[in-house]
């Protein structure tokens, strides 16, 4: 520690360069992680807010709610732990506003999902011309009481409430009544919903035409969801690998330059554990300071980022990422330790 601190203090420029490199790499990784998380959440936020365990769809719908239609006989009787969901892709339009591609979710107001929706303002729809929308509508200029039309339909729908983080498939959600969904979808009278969701983990459909999926399976099958996560996962993984190499190379060069000095110390009987300690604590100090600075940068970014940017700053996940970087750089810092252990005191004698 003594040697490490002294060296960092003397070699301010060199240490500063390494720290700033670590800052840049870890900041990049933090931001990418937050972006990945933010995008992933825009796929699933609405579903997460329902607090459901499984979802039942048409067995032929390929685990896609948009392709699924259920009839009353198929569904049978439900308990209060199940609820109907009617999904339709819609475009909201109103004069003076940009069109917003959205997901319409029709709910039965007596069932648990409708009761679970938390509003920031207003109330849940009471007629089939009333809707509750995601707060991103607010950011697009809509206010409570404003109306819009959906698709080619001429009906005016009135915004009676706003709800936060209502996103599905990276689009804002419009909550309305199940009967509104039926008319939007133009379905026959026998179809009653797109899906049945349940908060009972043991719920299984009894119909052969339907199939019940766990919520994680359903989410993973969402279009683009896995590809997106895989892409980000790979990017973050590669960055971790690159940071390992970069940090290792820098620490290696740093240590190599000191080997003649270390050889003298070895000749003078200074135990190698002191020198290894100096090398390792030097890497730790550099990496930790880099991580602290980039965390501060990330916090500043989180505060100043407009909410339209899909970023989610999840502290536990960022800590895991930070620890991962820490481990990577420790591995990088251990490579030159081998050379420190091998340093031959004889090499400096003789001149």
């Amino acid at each position, binding site marked *: 520690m*003594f*040697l490490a601190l*002294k*060296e960092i*203090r*003397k*070699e301010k420029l060199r240490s500063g360069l390494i720290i700033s490199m670590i800052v840049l790499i870890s900041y990049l990784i933090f931001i990418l992680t937050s972006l990945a998380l933010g995008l992933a959440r825009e796929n699933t936020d609405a579903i997460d807010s329902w607090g459901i365990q499984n979802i039942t769809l048409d067995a032929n719908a390929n685990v896609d709610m948009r392709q699924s239609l259920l009839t009353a006989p198929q569904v049978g009787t439900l308990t209060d732990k199940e609820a109907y969901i009617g999904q339709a892709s819609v475009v909201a339009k109103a004069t003076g506003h940009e069109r917003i591609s959205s997901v319409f979710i029709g709910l039965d107001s007596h069932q648990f999902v409708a009761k679970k929706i938390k509003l920031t303002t207003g109330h849940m729809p009471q007629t089939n011309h009333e809707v509750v929308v995601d707060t991103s509508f607010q950011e697009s200029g809509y206010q409570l009481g404003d109306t819009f039309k959906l698709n080619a339909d001429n009906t005016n729908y009135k915004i009676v409430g706003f709800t936060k983080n209502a996103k599905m498939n990276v689009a804002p959600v419009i909550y309305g009544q199940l009967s509104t969904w039926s008319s939007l979808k133009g379905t026959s009278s026998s179809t009653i919903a797109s899906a049945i969701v349940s908060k009972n983990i043991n719920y299984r459909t009894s119909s052969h035409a339907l199939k019940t999926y766990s919520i994680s399976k359903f989410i993973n099958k969402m279009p683009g969801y896995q590809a997106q996560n895989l892409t980000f996962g790979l990017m973050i993984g590669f960055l971790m690998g690159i940071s390992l190499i970069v940090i290792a190379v820098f620490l290696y060069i740093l240590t190599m330059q000191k080997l*003649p*000095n270390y*050889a*003298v*110390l*070895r*000749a*003078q*009987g*200074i*135990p190698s554990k*002191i020198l290894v300690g100096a090398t390792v604590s030097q890497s730790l100090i550099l990496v930790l300071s880099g991580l602290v600075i980039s965390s501060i940068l990330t916090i500043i970014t989180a505060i100043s980022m407009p909410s339209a940017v899909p970023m989610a700053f999840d502290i536990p996940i960022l800590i895991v990422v930070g620890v991962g970087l820490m481990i990577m750089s420790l591995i990088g810092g251990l490579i030159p330790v081998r050379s420190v252990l091998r340093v031959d*005191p*004889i090499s*400096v*004698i*003789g*001149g």
Partner: protein
Amino acid sequence: MSVLSIQHVNQFFGSGTARVHVLHDVNFDAKPGTLSLIIGPSGSGKSTFLTIAGGLLTPTDGDVLFDGQSYKDTSKKAREQLRLDSIGFILQAYHLLPYLTVADQFKLVDKVKKLHNLTPMELNELLNQLGIQDLINKFPNELSGGQQQRVAIARALYPDPKILLADEPTAALDTARVKVVGNLFQELAHTRNKAVVIVTHDIRLKEFADQIYELRDGTLTKQSTKVFV
């Protein structure tokens, strides 16, 4: 009794046709209170001799005893401890850590060897004697070659070793400084009872020596012994 006794040491480097015989049946004793000077030209084996004396290199043949105990019977770790406690090395190059001030060079020794180092007062006196007391807060790159060499001498003396092994300690010094350093080494031997061994090609040190040896092509021969009254 000798602090260091080198007995019938032969050293070879390389193998086959590249095999060189660097030290030929070298015998040498370093006694407390004696300054031994080994003079030899470049490449004669001086540094090799010191490496073997300090237990850094095990000779191809022969034996080295420190305080009567053979290095052969001493573990690597124990030899390392011996170098920390009892052997003061003054090396030809790279003596000082570039990122430690002069004061911190001594502090580092305190961190590793907690006891029996020079007291602050003794250190101060030593630095005064060497004329480097004002350089205490400077980094090595802010010192001249001669100043660095004197700091290195102080660094080697700081743990209060029994024996001092010095490789060309006066190479970067002018004649006036050679006198200062020569007197210091002499005083260390005579008043503090250290065994001092200096290998050098600097004949200016001859006047301070009690025993003078010549090392030529790996053969050590005793030249003269001053008798002190």
